[in-house]
């Protein structure tokens, strides 16, 4: 059988491949869908701005050792509390450490916490929400009461409680923030599932003999993923703030780790005399969470036409 299933794009022919009117393989069809969605982003200035900052953050975090100008742990008490200058772009802190280098390395910690939390909370919320919504009955009741209990606490307080129980540290704050951020996603996924489960294509899948788990996995989850991605991207801002908050309270990353919240916390003492020590990590937190918010809004516009 002469099957063009594996027709791969030729070099330089990528544009033609993406624009082909008749896709010749599943991969091509999916690539075309993705390309068209991404192409719709181009007019959304704020989303592009957010995406740009996120990409910049990722690059900075990845190349941190190359960008940083000083050793982030090296103390130099002779040059403590210096104003921003060409030798120290963002000045130095109370122990003479270079704030620029520390903020650069701090982006690694922030992204690590945000992405790991998303990677734990999103699948957990998705599985719990779709299972509760599709299976219904007592499974739904039990799972949703658990979600209600979690939702009854403010997320920072809940994270505080978990950190207090597990002990301070980055890994524990990731676990704590994940535990606080999956319930809203489960709620969202359940609500989506309730509208999908009565649809004809789910009925058709049942008539083909698909089991409940097959239907959840292959029919319901793909429909819930876009809104979950949007929600988790918007949540990233809150996750970053919660992580910084835990660091600020001394329950997240521990000094001398250059975590932004912890840096902000030490800078607080010098706020009135040496503003840059608190302002630089504070602005970093602001810009990072703003970027995720803007990008999340843009994603919602292209992935979820109902809110567009």
């Amino acid at each position: 059988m002469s099957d063009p299933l594996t027709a791969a794009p030729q070099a330089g022919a990528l544009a033609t491949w993406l624009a082909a009117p008749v896709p010749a393989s599943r991969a091509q069809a999916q690539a075309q869908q993705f390309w068209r969605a991404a192409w719709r982003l181009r007019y959304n200035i704020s989303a592009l701005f957010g995406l740009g900052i996120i990409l910049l953050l990722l690059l900075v975090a990845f190349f941190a050792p190359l960008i940083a100008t000083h050793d982030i742990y090296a103390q130099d008490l002779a040059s403590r509390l210096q104003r921003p200058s060409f030798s120290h772009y963002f000045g130095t802190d109370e122990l003479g450490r270079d704030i620029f280098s520390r903020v650069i390395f701090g982006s690694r910690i922030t992204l690590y916490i945000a992405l790991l939390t998303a990677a734990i909370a999103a699948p957990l919320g998705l599985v719990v929400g779709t299972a509760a919504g599709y299976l219904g009955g007592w499974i739904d009741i039990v799972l949703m009461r658990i979600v209600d209990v979690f939702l009854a606490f403010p997320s920072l307080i809940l994270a505080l409680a978990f950190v207090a129980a597990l002990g301070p540290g980055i890994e524990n704050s990731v676990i704590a923030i994940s535990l606080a951020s999956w319930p809203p996603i489960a709620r969202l996924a359940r609500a989506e599932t309730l509208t999908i489960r009565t649809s004809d294509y789910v009925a058709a899948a049942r008539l083909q003999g698909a089991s409940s788990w097959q239907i959840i996995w292959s029919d319901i989850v793909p429909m819930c993923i876009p809104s979950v991605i949007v929600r988790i991207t918007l949540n990233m801002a809150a996750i970053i703030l919660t992580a910084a908050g835990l660091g600020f309270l001394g329950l997240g990353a521990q000094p001398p780790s250059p975590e932004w919240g912890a840096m902000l916390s030490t800078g607080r003492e010098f706020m009135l005399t040496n503003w840059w020590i608190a302002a630089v990590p504070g602005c970093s937190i602001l810009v990072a969470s703003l970027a995720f918010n803007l990008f999340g809004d843009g994603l919602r516009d292209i992935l979820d036409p109902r809110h567009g």
Partner: protein
Amino acid sequence: MVTTDNIIETRGLSVTFGESTDTNRVVDDVSFHIRHGEAYGLIGESGCGKSTILRAIVGLNPDYDGEIFFQSQTVPHRRDKSFFRRMQMVFQDPYASLHPRKIVHQVLAEPLRIHGLDRHEERISDVLEAVGLGRDFRFRYPHELSGGQRQRVAIARALIIEPQVLLLDEPTSALDVSVQAEILNLLKKLRRERGLTYLLVTHDLAVVAHICERIGMMHCGKIIEELSADEVRGMRAVKDYTRDFLAASVGSRAGRIDQEMLPS
């Protein structure tokens, strides 16, 4: 008596919706049978319970009273895979019955995988050919297809596991008139080629007269009368309600569409 000639038979089939104080008996003690290779039509106005009968027979609505027989055997309320292998359904709205994020190939490959059939690519190409779509359609998403093309994909999905019975829930009412004729001719051709048994639900007399040999007239959850296709065309009904129903709808459309489609 149950005879081996009947592929589907219901006895005292009743479906009730609602709680104890506020119940609504949508299907009320319906008994009818469909013979092997026959096309049986259920007609009636909206809300008379015809689609509910279909959903009860196929197993989408397990809460029914009475008995349903398939090839002289009572079917359990929870259907199993081997039952679905032999009976499939085509839904009314092709815009809702295809998963929006699955390409045609995926839609057709899944039932093959569930039922453990072999030669996927070959079967998918064959069934697409049979419903009048080319192999090129394999990697399209539903939103890239027209209503008629979607309904062809839905028919292909039902046929790919080679069932004996096809339940059709108003398969053309969401389509343009010109496309309706194409789909009806396709259904007729497929039945001839594959020896399928059809149970068709519709409120459109032209459709039912074109496809079906025997027709059950439904009113308020009951089958009040059974007619042949010729009796419907000639409007020779016994019950007053049936005569009114035929008179109200036949004049406007039946003759015209039937003529358009006769060359098939």
